[in-house]
């Protein structure tokens, strides 16, 4: 029996005004996979994640989440998202770790309803999961970069998602923090959570990814669990053609 498809992109094209950002993107992510996405600045990595979490809509192509077309997919709670902004949030924001994690469940409750016991349990479980339960009542701005990133991860996990989408989660995190993050991702994989992570850092996902996707407006390479730079696909990373799609040695490859 084939694995359930969590994300399916078919010939996606996305433009900001007249500026093409993504074109001809085809990719499939099966349940339980960890997919690393890399590429040069401005390659469209974050935009690709934004398409998947529903922040933007593609002008052309088909996107399915858990088998449903993105336009009709309503079960947003199945997706946990750690945005790039999460790594440089307002450090003086007056909130405790617990309040931040609990806020991840806001959309589940609805307007005018207080968080209930289940929400509190999920938030505490998520904190325990990232080894941050001891810091529950600490102001979030007083934590180190690595600890803050774990709190953001817990915030996403408080939804008990089946798909976790991480945008540059190692930004501003020191080496020990990155190692810890890597250990956590490994544990989440063992629990069957599908993970999509944009990253410039290959090391922290070493041995964990089922494939690396190299993106430069279009998918330059795919289908290897080894970071592209290590297998001679470097032409994809620094080069960005004057014309759309130039600079990609390989033709777009679907997952």
């Amino acid at each position, binding site marked *: 029996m084939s694995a359930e498809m969590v994300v399916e992109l078919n010939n996606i094209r996305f433009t900001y005004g007249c500026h093409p950002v993504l074109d001809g993107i085809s990719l499939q992510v099966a349940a339980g996979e960890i997919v690393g996405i890399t590429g040069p600045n401005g390659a469209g990595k974050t935009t690709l994640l934004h398409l998947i979490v529903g922040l933007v809509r593609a002008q052309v192509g088909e996107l399915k989440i858990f088998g449903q077309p993105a336009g009709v997919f309503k079960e947003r709670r199945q997706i946990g998202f750690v*945005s790039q902004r999460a790594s440089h*949030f307002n450090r003086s*924001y*007056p909130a405790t770790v617990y309040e931040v994690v609990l*806020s991840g469940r*806001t959309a589940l409750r609805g307007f005018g309803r207080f968080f209930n016991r289940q929400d509190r349990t999920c938030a505490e479980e998520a904190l325990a999961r990232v080894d941050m339960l001891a810091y529950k009542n600490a*102001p979030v701005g007083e934590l180190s970069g690595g600890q803050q990133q774990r709190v953001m991860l817990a*915030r996403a996990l408080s939804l008990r998602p089946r798909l976790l989408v991480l945008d540059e989660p190692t930004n501003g995190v020191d080496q020990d923090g990155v190692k810890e993050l890597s250990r956590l991702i490994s544990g989440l994989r063992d629990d069957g959570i599908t993970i999509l992570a944009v990253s410039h850092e290959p090391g922290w996902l070493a041995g964990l990814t089922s494939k690396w996707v190299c993106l430069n407006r279009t998918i330059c390479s795919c289908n290897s669990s080894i970071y592209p730079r290590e297998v001679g696909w470097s032409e994809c990373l620094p080069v960005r053609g004057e014309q759309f799609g130039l600079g990609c040695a390989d033709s777009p490859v679907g997952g």
Partner: protein
Amino acid sequence: MEILQYDFMLRALAAGLMIGLVCPLVGLFVTLRRMSMIADALSHVCLSGVAAGLLTGVQPILSASAFAMGGALLIEALREKYRYYAELSIAIIMSAGVAIAAIIIGLGNGVGGGLMSYLFGSIVLISGRDVAVMFCIGLPTLLVLLIFTKEMFNITFDEEAARASGLPVKLINVVFIVLTALTIAVAMRIVGILLVSSLMILPVAAAMQMARSFMGTLFCSVLIGELAVIAGLVAAFYLNLPPGGTIVIILVLVLIVTLAATARGQSADFSRSAAGR
């Protein structure tokens, strides 16, 4: 107590308790969204609303509410247009508000004289009708704010993740800016148009020095707001001072004390950690 024997003081205290509650609540989210200047811009729009009300005979708090809501929605629309220069929208609406007020005052009919009590606030001129209008606008504003508290927290912390989770962020932002406009219109009668933004921002600035959590900051902001309004009204009554200025000076003193206490606490922590090395 002598102060409670006067009807005008009872009306001022009732209205004061309302704005002491609503202003810091709105101010907390205005601050967390880093939009402190929006309160100033909308209060200037209120100025033209009050002038229009005085000219046409409409209850000035109602006309100011309508103008402020219009200004708020225009700011939101302009923020979309000038996405990377969002502060331009505030400057544009602020200028337009003052310009319209200047024209209406220029039309005469004694508008300028009546406007003075709205500029700096007044205790004795608050009528029973003013208090009724303030409660009719203030209570629903408070209710909607409480309904949206956890959503506003989520949006101010990480708007991108909030949108991804399915929250109607755009709608909530519009509702919030309208609430901000209504709060300013309600509060201006006591604190005055020129000082209303202080009642929204200063309690929050002081509370952020004291509290370690969001709920703590929220409660401290409201507590400081209420105490400052009551103390300010009482002091204004006995010392024959303008209420708006008195309330704001009390808030500034509270802020100075909290800043000094925090600096002292940090200095003591530093000394302890240095001695421990």
